[in-house]
């Protein structure tokens, strides 16, 4: 049963009971347990109550009621996020959009799709497949994650350099504000007059509104996709190869780097033929027409060889291509096999800093006594160090978090950012004052207040409060 709180909670609960069918309102601890965390399971909290509305009108009424009774709301999609952005509040309503799972329309003439927020990322590409179209952003969680969650986090994936993030593939978003008002942002066309609110909403981590409908663009599938892998005995050679490739005017559809520990763990797990003696491998995907791909393939192979690749493997068929990708896509669970726990970081760095940053991470790893495996979206500079630890050993989680914090500040120091695609959520709050000045953070807070004056929508996430920042600064100088 939901714990007894103030009288506003009692009044809200009776209104929710009147509004929603029993199947849409979850009150018991037992039934709420699956919702206590998102993909970052070290942060857990049972919500006060969980609601799973079925209609737009219900979403509007829920938000209006919560606003009226001054009770906080945390929106949630599939819960695959990796920054505790959807972690519930003990004194808040968890608003789950799972029942909004319909693809409303796929329009071939404009190559666009209109979907509800609970539609899974991969389900959209699968539905578009018979028409030769697909939805480009493809985060590793694409089997489970939803388009609504992708909008909230501005999710990326392995094809960002060429095809962009969620924000670059959005046309229109309909959302409900904390006051229960329906706002349509963006439009049917490629632009609208005035400030770009669509971009503001993308990646706003559920702080500005609850997204209830999304229109995205779809892309035609390329007639040919070619995957190749290159192995290096020095990380810096692989880094140089990436810079040289882009310098030569090649924009691969995907370009991934894995370091020695990640290669070994992945190969032990899925056995796709990665060279386990390599210090780094690059996995490169080229797409286009036959002629385009053939032309690029020659340049890429030559470039990789020129920069010290001791082995190049060009996938001979779709099966081999899928195998080469499978190793990379299994990297996280593969690490999960060799370590009781792992902690995934998400900094982005200028590509030319990769060799320095990986060396520095190696030093930090030795200093903390915790192993770190690295997978890197080399095309767009998004680095995912995986810190291996054992939460059952007293103090190791705190050590892992401290090491993670050092890695993120390192990313800022070389001109990058603390999060490329996972979001700030609750997790990266401590690093926000490192990346942003007080004036910038205050600007974020005023912007939040323009949408949600009483700070009721996903409070405590994404943007640190003034008090938080003051405490942070005094600690830094103390």
């Amino acid at each position, binding site marked *: 049963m939901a714990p007894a709180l103030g009288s506003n909670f009692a009044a809200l609960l009776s209104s929710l009971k009147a509004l929603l069918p029993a199947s849409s309102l979850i009150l018991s601890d037992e039934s709420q347990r699956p919702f206590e965390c998102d993909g970052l399971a070290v942060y857990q909290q049972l919500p006060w109550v969980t609601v799973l509305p079925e209609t737009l009108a219900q979403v509007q009424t829920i938000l209006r009621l919560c606003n009226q009774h001054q009770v906080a709301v945390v929106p949630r999609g599939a819960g695959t996020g990796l920054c505790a952005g959807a972690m519930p509040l003990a004194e808040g309503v968890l608003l789950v959009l799972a029942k909004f799972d319909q693809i409303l329309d796929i329009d071939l*003439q*404009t*190559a666009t799709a209109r979907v509800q927020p609970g539609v899974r990322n991969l389900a959209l590409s699968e539905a578009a497949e018979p028409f*030769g179209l697909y939805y480009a952003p493809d985060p590793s969680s694409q089997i489970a994650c939803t388009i609504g969650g992708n909008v909230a986090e*501005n999710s*990326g994936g392995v094809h*960002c350099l060429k095809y962009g993030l969620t924000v*670059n593939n959005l046309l229109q978003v309909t959302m409900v*504000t904390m006051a229960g008002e329906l*706002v349509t942002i963006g*439009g*049917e*066309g*490629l*632009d*609208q*007059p*005035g*400030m*770009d*609110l669509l*971009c503001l909403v*993308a*990646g*706003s981590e559920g*702080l500005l509104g609850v997204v209830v409908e999304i229109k995205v663009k779809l892309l*035609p*599938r*390329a*007639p040919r996709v070619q995957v190749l892998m290159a192995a290096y005995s020095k990380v810096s050679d692989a880094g140089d190869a990436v*810079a040289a490739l882009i310098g030569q*005017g090649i924009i691969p559809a995907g370009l991934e780097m894995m370091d020695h520990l990640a290669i070994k763990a992945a190969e032990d797990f899925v056995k796709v033929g990665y060279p386990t003696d390599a210090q780094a491998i690059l996995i490169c995907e080229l797409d*286009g*027409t*036959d002629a*385009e791909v053939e*032309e690029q393939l020659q340049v890429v192979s030559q470039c990789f060889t020129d920069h010290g690749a001791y082995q190049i493997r060009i996938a001979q068929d779709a099966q081999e291509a899928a195998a080469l990708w499978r190793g990379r896509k299994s990297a996280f669970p593969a690490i999960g096999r060799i370590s009781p726990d792992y902690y995934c970081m998400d900094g*982005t760095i*200028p*590509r*030319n800093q990769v060799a320095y940053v990986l060396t520095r991470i190696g030093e930090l790893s030795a200093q903390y006594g915790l192993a770190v495996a690295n997978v890197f979206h080399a*095309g*767009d500079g998004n680095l995912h160090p995986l810190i291996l630890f054992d939460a059952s050993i007293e103090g190791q989680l705190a050590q892992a978090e401290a090491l993670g914090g050092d890695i993120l500040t390192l990313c800022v120091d070389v*001109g990058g*950012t603390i*999060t*490329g*695609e996972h979001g700030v959520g609750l997790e990266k709050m401590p690093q*926000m004052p490192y*990346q*942003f*000045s007080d004036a*910038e*953070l205050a*600007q*974020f807070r005023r*912007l939040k*207040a*323009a*949408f949600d004056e009483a700070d009721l929508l996903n409070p405590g996430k994404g943007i640190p409060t003034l008090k938080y920042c003051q405490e942070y600064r005094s600690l830094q100088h103390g």
Partner: protein
Amino acid sequence: MADLTSRLVEQVLQARAEHTPVHIIGGQTKAHLGRCPAPGSKPPMLLDMTEHTGVISYSPTELVIRARAGTKISDLNKVLAEQHQRLPFEPPTYNDQATIGGTVAASQSGPARPWYGAVKDSLLGLGLVNGYGEAMQFGGQVMKNVAGFDVTRLQAGAMGSLGVITEVSIKLLPQFNASHTLVFELEPQAALQRMQTWASQSLPISGVCYWQSQLYVRLQGGTSGVAEAAQQLSGQTLDAEVAQDFWQQVREHQLLVPQDDQTLWRWSGPANASLEVLPATQLINWAGAERWALAAEALAPSAGLCKYRGGDRQAEVNPALNAHDQALQRRIKQAFDPDGLFNAGRLYAWL
């Protein structure tokens, strides 16, 4: 080549103290865009960005350039061409006077927009002085960055209503190795249909435009890919120089220029919309998603339709927003510019 950020901050602080409205000006190539509000009782302070110029950093292998807002687009194009790179959104240069700051503020993208994105898609970060006179930095120089709200891309199209853009980081792309324009003589309806057929095909297209009974399609990319596509689409090949001139005219908005009492209307909407959405359409760009017509002022701004140039510019030029949306945009404006200093009334009379 100078960093005038601290002077800009002082000017904004002074304007704030004296309650003086601020008009941000650069190359003055976009004076015809947006509203032209009736002069108020107090003469505005002109915040001149033309001396705040220069490339701050450029690393070709990172595909990123950072430049001060007053830097001319044509100067950027020159610097990039030396490294065989380009601005993906193909902005107009307006006789070499357009600046990158103004281009971002007015969200000006050229013929390649449907395939290579708008200004916002290439915008990675920027510096902004808000109405409190605070110089701030948002976004960065990396491709992926989701820390904090996307204040950077919010500025694209805001016409300087939220602050003064001081510098921008732009994502770049390699220049095309080959370019080939085909022409088809078609009725407007058939041309629209042809555009939609191409939309669902994987083709190296970078421009589709209909003008004076001719459908132009520009293929750009690698040499063999372009040659292959040109053969596949058939059509009549346009001489390379003539093609370059044509696309330049489209990009620079030179094909339709309002005279005397004429108004240039711009419609932006779904590419497959019928021809009726804009009466007497003369130019179709962006494969159907952008349409243009010169007319005497009988139309009114409505869904997707803007009074782009000419006509009564004290009236609203953009479609009306509902009360909720107006209130929201006012609150956002206030979050940046509490005293309403910047470019008041330029986007809407009420903003």
